[in-house]
């Protein structure tokens, strides 16, 4: 993993290094968001629990529990990816850089897919409340 000093962008950094540092920062931001979602789900579940006699709230609570598990799994996957990012330093040409960028995009897709379905559950709950 990179420390905060090594993540800063310096004048002597080449495009490859800038790109690598960027991916690292972006990844950290995804993880921060997912860790926030972890907290948020706890509140949303509590709101459902207050009304668990109603069928809609009960099934939403179950779905949120499933999302909680998916979230934990995704955080672990992204942390593992973060630990392996340093391998990118071995790249010596643009073709290799492209491969790593493509891999990064695959992780972005996973993150986007999860957050989209999670948002959908949250919207359902907000609509039930109002």
């Amino acid at each position, binding site marked *: 993993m990179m420390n905060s000093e090594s993540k800063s962008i310096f004048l002597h950094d080449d495009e490859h290094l800038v790109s690598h540092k960027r991916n690292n920062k972006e990844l950290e931001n995804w993880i921060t968001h997912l860790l926030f979602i972890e907290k*948020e789900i706890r509140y949303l579940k509590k*709101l459902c629990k207050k009304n668990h006699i109603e069928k809609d709230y009960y099934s939403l609570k179950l779905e949120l529990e499933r999302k909680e598990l998916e979230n934990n799994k995704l955080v672990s996957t992204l942390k593992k990816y973060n630990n392996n990012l340093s391998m990118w330093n071995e790249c010596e040409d643009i073709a290799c850089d492209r491969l790593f960028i493509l891999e990064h995009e695959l992780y972005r897709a996973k993150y986007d897919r999860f957050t989209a379905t999670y948002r959908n559950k949250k919207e359902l709950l907000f609509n039930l409340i109002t």
Partner: protein
Amino acid sequence: MISNSILDKMSANKVLCLKKDLIELQHWQNKLEENHQELDAINRIQKQIIQESEIANRIQKVRRENTLSFASFCKYEQELLKEMEYAHGNYDLTIAKNHEKKRAEFISVEKSFYELKLKFYKRLSNYSIR
């Protein structure tokens, strides 16, 4: 004199970096749009259930920050597209630093949004929502 192949390689690197910036920017813009929709839902619940001016003011403040950042990102998107159009030479540090400024802006707006939501959920958990 710099040969054509070196110039081509420099441009290819620059295009790749700019494309990456645009992908990330698009992600920030989407996230701000989603935040905006969520702020609408939170505001609705606030008006119907919580009815506290402190929360209402905080929602307004975050919504304003969100809108201003969205406008600044749209302007930045135009700058990046223009840079792509005339992509020759190196991806210089001015572009990289500017992107990092935008990232800091995005993280700051996200932080305000997360803080607001935690406060909102804490308040909401005091009320019966049935």
